[in-house]
């Protein structure tokens, strides 16, 4: 019976114990990093956040004048609106395309075409965001000027298109997984009752996969909210409450990226930028958390 007894830790060979320790460290470090980052961002901003910053003004004022000599103002409302409007518009484009592509890939493709499609979608996901920004700055800029007869093409619309292109791959791959997870017996049951392909999709697949599809949309949105380089380059980067898709805007992320290099460490402006960081962290954390809960919801069923 001795052989069958589970080996206790003490008699594992030394090398295995080292490996186990190493893997354990890797796992724990993930958690440490996340908390570490949050702690660092929070520490840099905390002083001013609790002592000095007018939080109401920060959240509701559109006056962003951090470098003014005699009238410094830290109103981030326009930046918040900028981030949310560009993300919303991006999602309006990315969601129909992403879900449509996911349905196509999982329900209509031949297996061979599906593989090709997946490779292309992964390629799309791998394009660095600065390249998207570059495309926005040059190609899309020209296109918007010509199509809409606009004075300048670096607008919310331009940024949204870039963000849409960046989040489509995420939406497609997560949504496709969700559709794949719908048991084939549901499709068969519906088809045997005489449902056409479209009826199977909108009456059976979409309701059955709705949590996964929602998670796909949320993760796509989280990607858009956090994106920096492309929106910095493509949206005109000017503090403004947009009046339409052709207005220029500025986002929370782009503000940090553009200004952090030029502030003195520890002064008010520096700290405000970190407070924006905390805000962003909170937003994406909440969106990801909701997506996670939604995905968990699927598993429990």
């Amino acid at each position, binding site marked *: 019976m001795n052989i069958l007894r589970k080996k206790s830790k003490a008699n594992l060979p030394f090398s295995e114990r080292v490996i186990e320790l190493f893997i354990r460290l890797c796992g724990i470090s993930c958690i440490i990093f996340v908390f570490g980052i949050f702690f660092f961002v929070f520490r840099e901003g905390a002083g001013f956040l609790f002592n000095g910053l007018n939080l109401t003004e920060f959240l509701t004022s559109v006056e962003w004048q951090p470098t003014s000599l005699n009238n410094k103002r830290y109103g981030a409302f326009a930046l918040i609106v900028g981030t949310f409007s560009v993300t919303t518009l991006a999602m309006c484009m990315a969601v129909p395309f992403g879900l449509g592509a996911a349905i196509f890939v999982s329900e209509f493709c031949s297996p061979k075409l599906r593989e090709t499609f997946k490779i292309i979608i992964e390629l799309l996901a791998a394009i660095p965001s600065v390249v998207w920004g570059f495309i926005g700055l040059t190609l899309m800029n020209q296109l918007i000027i010509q199509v809409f007869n606009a004075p300048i093409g670096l607008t919310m619309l331009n940024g949204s298109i870039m963000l849409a292109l960046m989040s489509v791959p995420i939406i497609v791959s997560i949504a496709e997984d969700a559709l794949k997870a719908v048991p084939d017996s549901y499709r068969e049951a519906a*088809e045997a*009752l*005489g449902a056409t392909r479209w009826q199977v999709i909108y009456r059976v697949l979409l309701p059955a996969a709705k949590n996964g599809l929602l998670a796909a949309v949320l993760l796509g949105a989280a990607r858009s909210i956090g994106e920096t380089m492309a929106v910095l380059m493509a949206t005109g980067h000017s503090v403004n409450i947009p009046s339409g898709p052709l207005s220029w805007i500025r986002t929370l992320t782009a503000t940090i990226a553009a200004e952090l290099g030029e502030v003195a460490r520890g002064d008010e402006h520096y700290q405000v930028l970190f407070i924006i960081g905390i805000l962003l962290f909170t937003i994406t954390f909440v969106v990801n958390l909701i997506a996670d809960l939604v995905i968990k919801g699927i598993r429990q069923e």
Partner: protein
Amino acid sequence: MNYSIEAENLNLWYGDFQALIDVNVKIPHGQITSLIGPSGCGKSTLLRCFNRVNERYGNVTTEGKIEVLGKNIYDTDVSLPELRKAVGMVFQRPNPLPISVYENILFGLRIHSPMRSITKADADAIVEEALKSVFLWTDLKDKLKARATSLQLEQQQKLCIARLLPLKPKIILMDEPCSALDAKGTRAVEELMEILAGTYTFVIVTHNMAQARRVSKECIFMFLGELIEHRETQSLFTDPQHEKTSDYVHMRYG
């Protein structure tokens, strides 16, 4: 004699593999016909030809003719939704859709009628009638909003039968409908079939020879893709004409 299904020279291939070889069969109207044979002999394949649900697998080639209710279902002008409305199917594993009991029953009607053409009162009446015909009404009348996938297996399988009824099918195909059920569930489904036979033509695939003897009037024995013998059930079991049939009914194939 009236036939619901008549197949002539039916051949079917999955890719290169021939699963049905020159099958000729006539299935009489308004009674239960069972389909028996060893595993892999093509029972499910034959059954799934009758509503063309086989074609879901991309690699299927079919040759020959199948007349269902007097119409060749391989004609180009046949509408698959209409065919499947007339020929319902019950599967081996109960497969209610992941929606409420109520919506499961109405699913067929909803896909076959224009949007919003069913009034609430009609819908309620249809659901009640369908559930009553499968003797689920008393059990489920307070659970109509419950997810169908959360019911007991026996209830799920009966629900799968019930959801065919609002479409007023002529033929109901069943592929081992009791293999996921216990003895009590099996008995209940069999009784249900006996009551519904007459109104509907049943074709049932089964591995359970006792079941075939209990419920079916005629019985078809298949072997390696061929139809070997098709006779009145009792005589097929007591006096088989073919050696293979005799071996099978005396359980020599295991």
